[in-house]
């Protein structure tokens, strides 16, 4: 449940979109506000479905929201 290798910029995108609140984003994508908090804190990796809904809410691509951290992945494998 704690993803080390997926980062996101949801917080920045929210503020770029007229300081959208976590609650507003949550309602738009059909999630709870707690999930948005967990996502922004990097404690939760969403399903593909939710990732696409988040990207759609900001009108950007999925990779504009979520980035795969190759370095962290390599470190995880070596550990």
């Amino acid at each position, binding site marked *: 449940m704690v993803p080390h290798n997926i980062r996101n910029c949801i917080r920045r995108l929210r503020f770029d979109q007229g300081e959208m609140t976590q609650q507003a984003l*949550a309602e738009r994508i059909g*999630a*709870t506000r707690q*999930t948005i*908090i967990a996502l922004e804190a990097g404690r939760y990796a969403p399903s593909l479905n939710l990732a696409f809904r988040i990207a759609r809410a900001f009108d950007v691509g999925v990779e504009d929201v979520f980035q795969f951290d190759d370095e962290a992945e390599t470190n995880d494998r070596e550990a």
Partner: protein
Amino acid sequence: MSRQQTRARFNLAVCLTAVVLTLGLYPFVGSPAVGALGLMGLLGLGPLFFRSRPGSQEVLWDEREREIQLRASIISYSIFWVVFVAANMTLWAVYRKDGAVPVIFLPIIVFGGWLLFTVIQSIITLTQYRGGDQDGAA
């Protein structure tokens, strides 16, 4: 705080009250005090926490909630099952020569198992939410 957190706290409060009441009554009324565990029937009110207000767009349950609930249920069920089987085998080992297990153990086994499952499930649920409301709020 999510509705699931509220329900987990409610469940813990009900279980704690039932146990305290049972242990508190036992010195005065003896084995009938076990009937106080029936208070756990209040756990059936849990779904009421997931009622949405009329006209509200608030999402009460999503994929992360399901994941948390599933993990909590799997862990608590596993622990419950081991303890439940161990308790029943212990009773069998102790009372097999008598040919019958005292009837007082029936509610203790049923409610005790349910109590164990609910308490572990609630604690694991709350643990998984830890810190979720404190940081990043905006």
